């Protein structure tokens, strides 16, 4: 990992986003900035494949190395115990060329890992989580580890 900054930061929950005692939107729960290294970022989450987590995690920021392109990219998935895996995976990019969502895979110890790519040069973004789906409303996603590489090959 070369010259990469990543931080779990204070969760920001806007007023009015609570539902039935749970916070369904978590803004800025993790921040990443990069100045060099590989273009692929593997985020290991605390979401176990046995958790029934159903939700969306979004990356928002700017890709300077690609031409100061806005970033808004999302992944969604369901951590489904009967399959012992993540299923129904969705990968979407709002702004072309800003950041690409590549895959979500299960780590060797059973957690969801998200892979995205963007320029490694002076780019930075925050992560938001939306946990409004009925199986795990208010789930508290966290990033347990981040590895910067040059491919989508599993690293966790």
């Amino acid at each position, binding site marked *: 990992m070369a010259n990469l900054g990543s931080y779990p930061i204070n969760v*920001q929950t806007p007023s009015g986003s609570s539902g039935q005692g749970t916070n369904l939107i978590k*803004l800025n729960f993790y*921040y990443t900035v990069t100045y060099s290294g590989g273009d692929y970022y593997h985020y290991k989450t605390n979401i176990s494949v046995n958790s029934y987590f159903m939700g969306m995690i979004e990356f*928002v920021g*700017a*890709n300077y190395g690609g031409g100061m*392109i806005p970033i808004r990219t999302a992944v969604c998935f369901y951590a489904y115990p009967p399959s012992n895996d993540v299923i129904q995976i969705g990968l979407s990019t709002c702004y072309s060329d800003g950041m690409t969502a590549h895959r979500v895979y299960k780590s060797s110890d059973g957690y969801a890992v998200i892979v995205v790519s963007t320029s490694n040069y*002076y780019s930075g973004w925050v992560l938001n989580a939306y946990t409004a789906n009925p199986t795990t409303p208010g789930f508290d996603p966290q990033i347990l580890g981040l590895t910067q590489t040059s491919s989508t090959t599993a690293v966790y």
Partner: protein
Amino acid sequence: MADFNGYRLKGYPDNGGHNVIRTLHKAFTSDSSVTYIHFKTNVPIASYIMTMIEAVGYNYGMQAPIRCAWGFYTYGTYIVTQSVRTSAYGGMTAHGIYASSDNYVCIRGYTSGGSYFNGFVLNGYQTAGNGRGYDLQITASSYGTNSGNAF
């Protein structure tokens, strides 16, 4: 057009700055003839600040939501890098970025179908490598048909 009651999210521990500024500005017009909307920022081109600004809202007259964005980097004497992107939402297009006559960064949006009850907020993201923590603000706005520079 007054600034909205936004809030600034601290997110970068090394300088105590704010990397996300939500509801930086509220914009609204009911004038259907308005096709170009300009915002002047407080980012001087005589700076080294990477900024992404995103508009989110609803253009009633065009029957479409809005989500589009501008990215720029000021590099001492000019805007060295810039990009505009518009999502699949069609309510407004991120149309351009330019320097005002007094050398501040301005952004321009375009609504092909006018702006009859067009309302949106601007969010600011200073997440990239330079300029985190800058106190981003919108200092002026202009609504009309000017596809060039309004400031």
